[in-house]
């Protein structure tokens, strides 16, 4: 799949934002007043910024309001609704904390739960795609949730949970790559099943239907970037989990180093999301003899 910046920024930032929001909703850290204001500002900037970035992926954004209508069948529609609900519920909770010195904890819990559901719905946009076997596995939702919770803990300054979650995330990301690598083969889609010609022999593309790339090839058959995938995986996993975890374990807390840990996590997150798209093979590539 084409690793479009809009979808990479969308999934990364909104995941982090809703992850932080979940921690704030559960009451960690137990902030109020101006400090709460800054925490919520960061959460909202990330969550809303991510959602806005996704608008750049649209060909006809003036109709985006209609995306709230098909929650019965569409994960993307559910995602939009859940995101708005989470932002609204959390706004009530935040107003209480910031301006009224009130902690409406039940509202916080509800908001946190909706934030986690939002992340789950985001993950299902990808996890439901049978056409992309690498995404279409039961590990995709837990992976997205763990990304959000670990990144959220880091931003919320929850040092001990952050260390545990970052280690867990590093392990789960590694496992997902290993399992994901075999998914296409396991799905048994080949150029022979795509064309139905397998019983006549081995099939190969003799002539492409068009002489230059089309929408399908540009959007769904992204091969060029995969050359350095292995190196990028290592870079990503080191920056994403190992560097921040080591900083948190070894160094007594200081803002400067915490900032470096967050920055490192963010870069690692972007690299891993880039890989999430660039390495995903869509079955339509089979009609072009490409994976």
């Amino acid at each position: 799949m084409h690793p479009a910046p809009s979808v990479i920024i969308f999934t990364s930032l909104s995941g982090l934002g809703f992850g932080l929001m979940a921690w704030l909703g559960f009451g960690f850290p137990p902030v109020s007043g101006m400090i709460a204001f800054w925490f919520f500002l960061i959460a909202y900037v990330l969550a809303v910024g991510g959602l806005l970035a996704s608008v750049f992926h649209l060909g006809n954004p003036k109709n985006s309001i209609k995306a709230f209508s098909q929650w019965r069948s569409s994960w993307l529609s559910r995602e939009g609704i859940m995101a708005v609900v989470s932002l609204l519920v959390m706004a009530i909770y935040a107003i209480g904390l910031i301006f009224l010195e009130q902690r409406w904890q039940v509202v916080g819990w509800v908001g946190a739960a909706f934030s986690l559901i939002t992340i789950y719905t985001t993950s299902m946009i990808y996890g439901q795609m049978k056409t992309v076997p690498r995404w279409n596995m039961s590990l995709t939702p837990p992976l997205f949730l763990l990304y959000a919770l670990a990144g959220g803990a880091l931003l919320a300054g929850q040092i001990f949970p952050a260390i545990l979650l970052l280690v867990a995330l590093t392990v789960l990301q590694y496992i997902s790559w290993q399992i994901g690598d075999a998914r296409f083969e396991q799905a048994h889609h080949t150029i022979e099943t795509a064309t139905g010609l397998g019983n006549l022999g081995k099939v190969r593309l003799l002539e492409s239907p068009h002489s230059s790339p089309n929408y399908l090839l540009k959007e769904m058959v992204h091969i060029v970037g995969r050359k350095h995938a292995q190196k990028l995986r290592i870079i990503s996993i080191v920056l994403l989990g190992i560097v921040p975890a080591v900083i948190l374990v070894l160094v007594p807390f200081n803002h400067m180093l915490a900032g470096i840990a967050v920055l490192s996590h963010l870069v690692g997150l972007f690299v891993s999301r880039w890989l999430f798209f660039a390495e995903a093979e869509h079955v339509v590539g089979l009609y072009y003899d490409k994976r």
Partner: protein
Amino acid sequence: MTTLPAHTEKKLGLAIDLDTCVGCHACVISCKEWNTSNYGAPLSDIDAYGAEPMGTFLNRVHTFEVKADGSNAQTVHFPKSCLHCEDAPCVTVCPTGASYKRSEDGIVLVNEVDCMGCGLCAWACPYGARELDKVEGVMKKCTLCVDRIYNKNIPEEDRVPSCVRTCPAGARHFGDFADPQSSVSKLAAERGGLVLMEAQGTKPVNRYLPPRPKADVTNTAQIDIPNPYLKPASSKPDGFLGWLDNALEKI
């Protein structure tokens, strides 16, 4: 509404004959011509005369080579447009309600007035049957020429999809697969119509009629490949040389 109808009265679709298709791309052109000037936004072309021309098409023809061990390779031209799946994943993923499947005839359509151009339906389609138009920003796909097949303003023989009407080899057949007596159902039954990528669970309506077995041209004992129908050329010269030859032999 992007939930799928539990049942459609008809299952209109195409039976595409991979044996007779000659790969001329006439259906590609006629599809583009009809659909750029009728239902919905036109099908744009970008940089049409430049180094990398790109455009939106609802129908494309791939050409494959198939080869079994020990036999000659065979060329198969492979037209591909929307298969109007019964379990169309492109419809259920659509967040805006723009994509839908008609309960009366099973045709899968995009209502462009509602489409936001997110492209998710194209991701969900295993067959590459949907293309997002670069200029209009909305999703385009085969309409099964819904504006022809019921169109009382055109002569009756034209009330079939444009690609079907155009095909010079008669390789594309249109009809109702819900009716076992229809020509397409019979064709699919007789010829063992293929379902593409069955494991995706999309239940396509369209069927592909596989290429018929070819004559065994490798068995040279049976057929004289260069000149199967010509008599062996006489080794004797004719005309003046023949007369000379005969005359000299008689001496």
